[in-house]
């Protein structure tokens, strides 16, 4: 990890040497296409790119973080390749997992920045404090800001992983004691993608890198610099508990009948109607589950200022945007339930009338 070798192997050749079967490789490429919301006709292009391209060099910087995004990366199980990120990129520097310490570590970072200038990927985890000259986060005697300017400024692109690196995250929650900001704000002018989430979802990070390798460009981004494939849809609209919302079936107390039956968590404070993330479809831990499936309301971890803009995690959202008009989720739920009830009633009337007329006919 500490020295850079000229490795001529392509990503696929390298994976094959590690014992990854062709079948698993194709499956991985298909999963990436699906994550990127691309039709299956793009799978051959991804396969071709990974067959030809070498692993890009990457460095992983940790600033004001909890290493949760590193944990998320290391626990990648899907798609089929255990060390998916580590296999697609050549990670030269990562404080939490690298062997070298002190000067050795600093040298590894310096070598990539110098020898791979303009070609490597900078992955940033954690926010950057700007207050008091940036003294609230230093590594090897340098401030986070100083390091980010050099490392991100010389990279081909920067991936801000997790909410802290994207927009400040927890560190920037009121009163933001250290003046923490995301990397895009700290180092203006760099090419970057925000991959928020607390933590980020490793499949979205990998898919962004695969997109870059396949098409030579960043995926389509929203106004907050997040990939549309991951943040283009509202959680509420893809939620498996949505039918219960529409039916007016809400959890009202932890452990009540509705909670046990998997009803809608809106009244318990779910921020799903305001959160743009692909959690319901991609899920976590290799597609096992996600917070709402586990019975806890979404707290919009990938939305800017989520710790302050929505009140408490457990306070109910007041206004939920409906189909082109502003109303409350309660009203939508009740209206839909009322319509459904009216439908049932109408059906009953029809049946009753029909039954009556049939009866009359018989008479």
């Amino acid at each position: 990890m500490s020295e850079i070798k000229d490795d001529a192997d392509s990503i696929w050749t390298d994976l094959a040497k590690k014992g990854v079967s062709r079948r698993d490789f194709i499956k991985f490429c298909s999963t990436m296409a699906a994550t990127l919301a691309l039709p299956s006709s793009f799978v051959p292009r991804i396969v071709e790119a990974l067959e030809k391209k070498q692993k890009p060099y990457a460095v992983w910087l940790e600033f004001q973080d909890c290493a949760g995004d590193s944990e998320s990366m290391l626990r990648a199980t899907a798609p089929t390749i255990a060390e998916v990120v580590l296999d697609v990129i050549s990670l030269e520097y990562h404080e939490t997992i690298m062997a070298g310490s002190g000067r050795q570590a600093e040298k590894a970072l310096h070598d990539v920045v110098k020898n791979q200038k303009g070609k490597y990927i900078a992955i940033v985890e954690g926010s950057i404090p700007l207050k008091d000259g940036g003294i609230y986060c230093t590594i090897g005697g340098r401030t986070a800001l100083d390091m980010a300017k050099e490392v991100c400024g010389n990279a081909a692109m920067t991936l801000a992983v997790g909410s802290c690196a994207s927009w400040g995250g927890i560190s920037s929650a009121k009163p933001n004691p250290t003046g923490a900001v995301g990397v895009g704000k700290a180092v203006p002018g760099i090419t970057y993608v925000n991959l928020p989430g607390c933590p980020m979802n490793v499949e979205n990070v990998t898919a962004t890198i695969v997109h870059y390798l396949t098409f030579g460009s960043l995926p389509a981004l929203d106004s907050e610099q997040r990939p549309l494939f991951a943040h283009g849809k509202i959680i509420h609209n893809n939620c498996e508990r949505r039918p219960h919302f529409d039916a007016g079936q809400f959890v009202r107390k932890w452990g009540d009948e509705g909670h046990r039956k998997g009803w809608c968590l809106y009244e318990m404070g779910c921020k799903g109607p305001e959160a743009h993330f692909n959690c319901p479809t991609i899920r976590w831990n290799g597609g096992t589950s996600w917070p709402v499936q586990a019975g806890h309301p979404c707290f919009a971890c990938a939305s800017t200022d989520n710790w302050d803009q929505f009140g408490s995690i457990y306070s109910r959202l007041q206004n939920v945007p409906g189909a082109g008009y502003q109303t409350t989720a309660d009203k939508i739920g009740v209206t839909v339930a009322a319509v459904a009830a009216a439908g049932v009633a109408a059906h009953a009337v029809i049946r009753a009338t029909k039954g009556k007329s049939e009866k009359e006919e018989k008479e």
Partner: protein
Amino acid sequence: MAKIAIDPITRIEGHLRIEAQVDGGKVTDAWSSGTMWRGIELILKGRDPRDCWALTSRI
């Protein structure tokens, strides 16, 4: 007598700097510094107590 500093200490969560005074091959004194601070305690002040687990579990 020499003073050595190792920063960053890797394979740990967080940011750590260790300085040590070495005298004839023996460490005679040592100092450690956590080199990152976010002020989670200040962020927690005045918040809904029910939210605190979500913030503190991310230290």
